[in-house]
């Protein structure tokens, strides 16, 4: 069945999914850290809206809480922290030269198709919407990994990591109307701690190799020169 027959909620969810996917793509191609962080915050915001929407239309109140958590963590705290780091390191001016960017982009597109292909068995169990939503979130996860692979800045890695979290979260919201509360809280707690630890690590890495270029973290290897 096609999009016209869907109710408004579904249409909204789907367009949200599309937007989230779009943001991932934007991040993937983004060389400037500050913009990267901004897009990431944007994605978080979309996520919050989706959660709130879901909470409203399914009137399941605990989703509001997770929406709040998302807002605080992924839209405010983490972007703020990352931005602060970038400014401290004054890396906000330099642009990371991404090698063969277009190839990465095409790869990302391929990933999206791939996630559809992988998840199609789910169609039998439920509606096409679920398939769309899950496929989108999976591709967001994969794109996050791609982002980490293609970017050299530790900050970008953190963003990618968090983007993966977003993808998971989105999947949880749309596919299963959120996880059980205890899990939600646990995940949120983990994300928070992770964010804090990232902050600490930025400091340590900077003191040890006075840069955040992860390619220079290569003391521990076993390839003989």
């Amino acid at each position, binding site marked *: 069945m096609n999009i016209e027959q869907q109710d408004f909620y579904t249409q909204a969810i789907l367009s949200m999914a599309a937007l989230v996917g779009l943001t991932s793509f934007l991040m993937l191609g983004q060389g400037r850290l500050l913009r990267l962080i901004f897009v990431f915050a944007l994605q978080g915001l979309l996520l919050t809206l989706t959660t709130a929407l879901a909470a409203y239309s399914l009137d399941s109140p605990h989703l509001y809480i997770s929406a709040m958590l998302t807002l605080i963590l992924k839209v405010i705290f983490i972007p703020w922290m990352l931005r602060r780091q970038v400014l401290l390191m004054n890396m906000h001016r330099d642009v990371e030269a991404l090698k063969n960017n277009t190839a990465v982009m095409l790869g990302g597109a391929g990933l999206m198709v791939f996630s559809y292909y992988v998840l199609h068995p789910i169609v039998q169990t439920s509606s096409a919407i679920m398939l769309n939503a899950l496929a989108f979130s999976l591709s967001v996860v994969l794109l996050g990994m791609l982002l980490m692979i293609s970017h*050299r800045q530790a900050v970008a890695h953190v963003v990618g990591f968090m983007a993966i979290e977003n993808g998971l979260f989105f999947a949880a919201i749309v596919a299963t109307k959120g996880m059980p509360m205890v899990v939600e809280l646990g995940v949120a707690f983990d994300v928070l701690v992770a964010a804090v630890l990232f902050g600490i690590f930025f400091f340590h890495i900077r003191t040890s190799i006075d840069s955040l270029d992860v390619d220079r973290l290569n003391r521990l290897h076993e*390839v003989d020169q």
Partner: protein
Amino acid sequence: MMVLMPAYAAVLFSFASGLLALMTHRRPLLESLCLRYAARFPGRQPGRIPLVGLLEESRYPIRLRQAVFVLLGISGLLAVLAGSAALVSQSAVTDQIGLGLPWLPWHVRFDGLSGFFFLIVGIAVSAVSLYGPGYVQTYQEEKHPFAVLGLFTGLFVAGMLLVLLADDAFFFMIAWELMSVASYFLVAFQHENPANRRAAFLYLLMAEVGALAIILGFGVLAGFSDGLTFDALRQANLSTGWASIAFVLALLGFGMKAGIVPIHVWLPEAHPVAPSHISALMSGVMLKVAVYGLIRFCFDLLADAQWQWGVVLLVLGTISALGGILYAMMQPNLKRLLAYSSVENIGIIFMVLGLAMIFLANGFPQLAALGLLAALLHAFNHALFKNLLFLGAGILQHQVHSLDIDSMGGLIKRMPQTSFLFLIGCMSISSLPLFNGFVSEWLAFQTALQVDVLDNGVLRSLIPVSAAALALTAALAAACFVKVFGLIFLGLPRSRHSEKAQEAENKGMLLALKLLAGLCFFFGIFPTLIIGALNTVAKQLIGQVLPNATLLSWMWLAPVSVQKASYSPVLVLIGVLIATGFTFWYLRRNPDTKSMRRSGAWDCGFGGLNARMQYSSSAFTMPFRRIFAKVWLIDEQIDKDMQGAQDMDVAAIHYRLQVQDHSWPKLYQPIAHGINAAARLVGRIQTGNIRVYLGYSFVTLIVMLWVVSL
């Protein structure tokens, strides 16, 4: 059951000796224990409390060593007892020990075969326990702790005995590996010198590989049967293909331990560097345990033997026999030489086993019994004289402080007893009549000569050739040991040490040698005793006995029938005595020519004969080097120091000879290089760049998802 008791006791005593050795540094503990015990009897004054007398500071270490070896000796005697009991009673006792896996306790079976090998181990261990105290007293404690030596010696012996007792694959492997690991620690005992470390590593590696092969072999059997007990494995009905795979695995595993060419390389490295009494045990007994494993696997567990297996054994055995003795001949180091000659003897044993298997597969169980008997007898004899020679080598090492044959000489005057006993060892190992080595070789020839009964043309022409090879081996062995005895004991001393050498003052050491030499001679004269015992083994394994091994009487040996062949060592001995005695008396009856006049040896009139003019070992073996040149990797260098007017006249000539084994460069180094190369290749994975790592997990995820969505 009564038979099992001494067997268990033997194992326990060997464990006990090992544990007691751990008490080397626990004197205060023992003392306090004794005093506490004594406190129970207030009546006595401390002087007469048992044991405390033995425990005072000064004599404690010596006492402890003696005690350890006494325990070891008891275990050896018990093993002899148990073994002979099993052979006499002709029964197979089974039992279970409540250890191991919940559903698979350790199964124990004690039958004729185990009993016979118990006998071998027992004799060797008793001899070693006589020899040990004198040998170890020169180790100073802080450098070579006796605790380690004693502990692992005990474990080693216990391991060997347990292997012989085991009746399920799991228990067998545990005992087997206990044996290997314990002996590994013994090889590494003097680990301050690199040779030991290298040898130990090589040894353990080979032992591990061999053990894995054996496990796999058992696994093949277990795959076709239910359970791991030998009874279950016997019931396994496998296709010929699987059976052959199992056989090859077993051959690889046990052959690696037994030191079959070309997988023998660890043996001449490991045996010489261990303390001599351990070398004696390893070379004399442990190899036999490997033979036991092979016999148990191929003749007992594997249901029906194929003649092709027999051929494989025969060929491998022949190669090992010839290769072993040829390599042995070139060794300047006495213990290395002996180790190589063990390879040779194991080769002979495998050869005869191969014959037995061929006959068995072709439906001649009686001849198979003959072959098996010859193999077992040779194993027994080899244990005797190889122990004798290794222990003798130990004494030499003590007295001459070297094992280099070229640095000895003239010791027969300085060490008359040792030299005489060593001579007996040499004569037995080069299989001269009247000594035990000859009997088993004679039986081997007899087995080979029965080839007429076979139909298969290949076998009919192959077996005689291998018999001739056996003859060549025997002759070469004789040559080799003429060299050994002649260069070590005869002629003029080639070094200061051997000039100053004295007879070993410790009586125990000589006593051990005497015991073994006596047995060598005894079983050379009365082989029928042991052969009668061996018949029971053959009966239990093959279900056949020799028709009339001892038909005529105890003094005749006629394996097949009197018409075919017979040998009576007793009569021969009598004849020799008569002839020698008569000539001796007759020629020396004239009093004025009875005495001999001494004078200098013929020196072509130049005068000044000295020790360096004698034949050295490399000189002695030079014709062989020329004739069998292809067998070794020979690196011979002669460089001359020139001097005088335009360097025309030679001041000095330096001769360097290195003889190396083929299997190093051909077999071992390629494997080692292969593994290192593979490791280097694999090392590329660990690039150190985190983005690459992320890439790995990313790709893995994609691939996996693709796989499941297929």
